[in-house]
């Protein structure tokens, strides 16, 4: 049998990397098991002429399309929003847009402020130092001083405005609406061994330049130098427990597919809002028949995506298309509750700079605005390089019927039951999406756009996987406590997006990592009585 480790972390993505790095200073024996492997930037799509085509296959954001050995299938047939993720060292930070807003202070108090959902058991101020620390390590760029966003101090200047940014800014100014350069994790200058952005443009499916921050090139090199062991191509099947109801270790399949048992004194789950409930439910036992850490019955429930209401059109002036990071500006004009709009809570806005020629052709043909035949060439030249987009990222409120369970049939390549997602968009979210589309249309028309098209929701837009093992002080209404420890299993922690109580209206990775650092800090402060 293997020697026990002090701390076993499952998952080497956004949160697993952060918690590993933070705990490394304790000099405990820390092991991370990751189902994927190390990435090779020389093989990233933007290094080849077929860079756009790869997005439809091996570099799809959907694990079901991608089907790499490192992926697991997800039954999301019963959801209008499909799950997207990436499985590797770095996790979904390898494949994300690097847009870097934080939850707002008001997001932690939705019940108090608006009478909906629940308040978090912690507030924004508790996370502030960890946001700052995370921004420094991930390496953020932006412009401090946005009057409608939490104050940030990006160590690098904002991205260039570019052609698209100038068009967006002028239109938003005409309307008197808020906009601001986005905080991003795109390095705009050489930073901590990362080369500055050279506008490869195809940022989402990994950055060959290394300018986009992902935890395989930020946290992990530091954590490994500090002594953390990272074992790749190891897929955890279940967490085991002992006669006292404590986590005793994990059963996993190694890179050769051989079943192994790794004992551990502490287990930390960092598998995202779909992978984490899947693992907990797959860890059912005689003592925990409904799944591990599930006495509340809430494991897998309250799944929150962010329904994206996207609207785009085509302006006469050239836009940046594929020659820039896809997002550069945001708006918080409609972030806070205004009941006169017909819904509670709100949404952030990501502006979209454009698209490459293949993507433009494929999507426009599907939308029916790019014809077959002789007129194809004229129309394509009108569309290509002229796209401008507006995406409302709508706050999804927690609802127990939106959930992750185990599929009774579907299994991964190791025979482990796969997750099944059941999800519907709420009436409140629908009204919010309609509001966002209407504002987006006003914006586009002000910018002079025509041929306006809508994606609402963006079907392959399930990037943000939140809420399925929520935190709280009441064990009957939450899965983990206010510092990430399972109410039921006192040496089991969760640090990923599944512990979110509400989703806010922004991309969550910054907050996920700040939470992971906060939980690690809480653990370090309590090492002498961690299990009390």
């Amino acid at each position, binding site marked *: 049998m293997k020697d026990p480790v002090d701390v076993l972390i499952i998952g080497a993505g956004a949160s697993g990397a952060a918690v590993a790095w933070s705990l490394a200073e304790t000099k405990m024996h820390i092991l991370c098991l990751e189902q994927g492997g190390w990435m090779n930037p020389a093989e*990233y799509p*933007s*290094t*080849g*002429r*077929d*860079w*756009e*085509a790869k997005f*439809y*296959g*091996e570099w799809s954001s959907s694990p079901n399309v991608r089907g790499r050995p490192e992926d697991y299938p997800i039954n999301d047939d019963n959801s209008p929003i499909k799950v997207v993720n990436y499985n590797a060292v770095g996790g979904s930070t390898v494949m994300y847009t690097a847009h870097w807003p934080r939850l707002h*202070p*008001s997001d*932690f108090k939705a019940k*108090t*402020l608006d009478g909906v959902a629940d308040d978090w058991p912690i507030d924004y101020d508790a996370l502030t130092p960890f946001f700052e620390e995370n921004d420094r390590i991930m390496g953020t760029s932006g*412009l401090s*001083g946005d*009057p*409608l966003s*939490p104050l940030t101090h990006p160590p690098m200047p904002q*991205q*260039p*405005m*570019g*052609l698209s*940014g*100038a068009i967006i*800014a*002028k239109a938003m*100014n005409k309307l*008197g609406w*808020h*906009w*601001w*350069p986005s905080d991003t994790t795109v390095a705009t200058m050489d930073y901590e061994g990362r080369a500055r952005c*050279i*506008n*490869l*443009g195809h940022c989402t499916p990994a950055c060959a*330049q290394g300018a986009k921050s992902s935890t395989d090139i930020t946290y992990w090199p530091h954590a490994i130098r500090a002594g953390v062991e990272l074992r790749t191509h190891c897929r955890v099947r279940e967490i085991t427990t002992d006669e006292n109801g404590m986590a005793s270790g994990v059963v996993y399949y190694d890179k050769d597919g051989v079943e192994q048992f790794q004992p551990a004194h502490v287990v930390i789950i960092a598998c995202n809002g779909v992978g984490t409930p899947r693992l907990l439910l797959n860890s059912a036992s005689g003592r925990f028949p409904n799944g591990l850490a599930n006495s509340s019955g809430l494991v897998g429930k309250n799944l929150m995506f962010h329904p994206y209401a996207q609207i785009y059109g085509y302006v006469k002036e050239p836009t940046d298309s*594929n*020659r*820039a990071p896809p997002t550069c500006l945001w708006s918080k004009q409609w972030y*806070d*509750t205004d009941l006169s709009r017909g819904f509670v809570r709100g949404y952030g806005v990501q502006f979209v700079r454009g698209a490459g*020629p*293949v993507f433009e*052709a*494929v999507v426009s*043909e*599907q939308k029916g605005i790019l014809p*077959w*035949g*002789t007129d*194809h*060439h004229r129309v394509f*030249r009108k569309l*290509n390089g002229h796209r401008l987009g507006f995406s409302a990222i709508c706050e999804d409120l927690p609802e127990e019927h939106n959930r992750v369970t185990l599929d009774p049939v579907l299994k991964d390549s190791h025979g482990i039951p796969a997750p099944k997602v059941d999800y519907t968009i709420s009436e409140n979210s629908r009204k919010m999406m309609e509001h966002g589309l209407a504002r987006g249309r006003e914006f586009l028309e002000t910018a002079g756009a025509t041929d306006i098209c809508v994606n609402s929701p963006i079907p392959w837009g399930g990037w943000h996987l939140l809420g399925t093992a929520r935190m709280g002080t009441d064990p009957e209404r939450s899965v983990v406590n206010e510092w990430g420890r399972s109410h039921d299993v006192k040496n089991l922690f969760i640090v990923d997006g599944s512990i979110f109580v509400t989703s806010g209206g922004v991309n969550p990775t910054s907050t996920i990592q700040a939470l992971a650092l906060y939980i690690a800090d809480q653990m370090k402060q309590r090492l002498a009585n961690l299990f009390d």
Partner: protein
Amino acid sequence: MTDLLTLTPRQRDDLRTVAAMIIPASEEYRVPGADDDIIQADILATLGRDTKHVVAALDHLARLAGMPLADLEPAARDDVAQQFRSSGGGAAATLVRVVLQCYYRDDRVLRSLGLELRAPFPKGHVLPDGDWSLLDPVKARGGSLRRAP
């Protein structure tokens, strides 16, 4: 559905015909059609994981046409193409996407569009920094963050 990983000669002919219907050659823009030999060779060489869907799409097309697509009168061919696109589902969408993704990486086509013939890395692109005084009205309006009392 044909259970082969390569296309039959008839399927190749139909693929070439439908590709030309999607994107015909243009003298005005000095570009080949998607039935061009080089583009067709690229499509066939890179079908990969899309082969099954493309074969399914071509089977569907053959059923609609009842004969080689190229042998139909132009009006009938257009009618079949419309039916194919409206009833072909994901398979037809895949076929069209495969044609488009190979067409819009062809050197002659990119040149006609004024695009460089290269991968994004390592050269990248240069962006104008922009006029950040555009932010002045936003700064002037100001604002505050909502907080719990």
